């Protein structure tokens, strides 16, 4: 049976030509232990795992080795970040170092413009992204939900952008739903909500709006049971995406009986 429909169709998440079976990207920080992190990864089955680079000496070196071994055991593609970088040169050099260490062209570009809110440096982000793309990176930029900023990032070659829902680690959920929905309507590239989600319902909500994936860390890592929460987020992301594909009804201001009125017993008896 053929059916003409403007509805979006189900297809795997595709970023820079690579497909992923999951629409959840998971951070690896702040878990109670490496074993809990590994169990959370196994439960969530994320598309990618974020990781970072830091100076390591002494005991820190052992922690780094342990994490490296965990990443290899997890067998999930790694998305290195440039967390903590405040200048374009810091971000570019960190990305180059990450490419060598993790043997990947993927980079989550973080260019911090404000230490208090961890808001990205929106003025320099497109130029940093442009330089990295010219250097062969697959750039996933962490950005605000500003439409023009996101458009500029696409203009310089970003094949996906990652607006925040709220400041990193706050767990507030989308603080500017109108802008996020406008962004979704205006920008025909994969959009990943990165940062600020606290509940599976937040993730489900943005997926219902048509976002392509979510990236989160703290909401899972700081849950009382991170493994169970990892599963809850994975389910919520899928449910939200399924709902988007299904097409939601239009909300109305007036009640409409769902049970047919015609033939209602005892109607007009009095």
């Amino acid at each position, binding site marked *: 049976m053929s059916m003409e429909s403007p509805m979006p169709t189900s297809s795997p998440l595709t970023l820079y030509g690579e497909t992923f079976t999951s629409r959840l990207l998971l951070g*690896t920080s702040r878990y109670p232990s490496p074993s809990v992190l590994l169990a959370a990864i196994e439960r969530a089955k994320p598309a990618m795992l974020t990781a970072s680079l830091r*100076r*390591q*000496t002494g005991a820190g070196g052992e922690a780094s080795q342990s994490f490296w071994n965990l*990443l290899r055991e997890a067998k999930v593609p790694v998305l290195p*970040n440039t967390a903590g970088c405040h200048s374009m040169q810091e971000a570019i*050099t960190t990305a180059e*170092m990450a490419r*060598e260490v993790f043997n990947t062209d993927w980079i989550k570009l973080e260019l911090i413009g404000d230490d208090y809110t961890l808001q990205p440096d929106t003025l320099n982000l497109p130029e940093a992204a442009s330089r990295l793309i010219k250097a062969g990176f697959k750039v996933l930029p962490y950005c605000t939900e500003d439409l023009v900023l996101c458009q500029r990032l696409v203009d310089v070659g970003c094949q996906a952008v990652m607006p925040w829902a709220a400041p990193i680690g706050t767990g507030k959920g989308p603080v500017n739903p109108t802008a996020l929905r406008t962004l979704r309507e205006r920008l025909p590239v994969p959009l990943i909500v990165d940062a600020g989600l606290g509940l599976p319902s937040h993730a489900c909500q943005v997926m219902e709006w048509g976002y392509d994936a979510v990236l989160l860390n*703290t909401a899972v890592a700081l849950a009382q049971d991170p493994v169970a929460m990892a599963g809850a987020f994975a389910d919520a992301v899928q449910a939200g995406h399924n709902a988007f594909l299904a097409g939601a009804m239009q909300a109305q201001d007036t009640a409409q009986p769902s049970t047919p009125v015609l033939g209602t017993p005892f109607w007009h008896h009095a």
Partner: protein
Amino acid sequence: MSESATIHVLINQVPYELPTHATLADAVQRVGITPPFAAAVNMQFVPKTQYANHVLQTNDQIELIAPITGG
């Protein structure tokens, strides 16, 4: 003018004294960091293949960084 026998560098912000003409490979060996890691000198990435050829200068700032968890 006689050339100094040593140079002073910072490796991850810790001062080190190395012989003149020391390379990045020498600096890495001095610190004893185990792979995987990556290096930058004065905020410029240096690929592993260049460690032995990259001659350090006094006051160079070397960063050696390794994988950690991240969000």
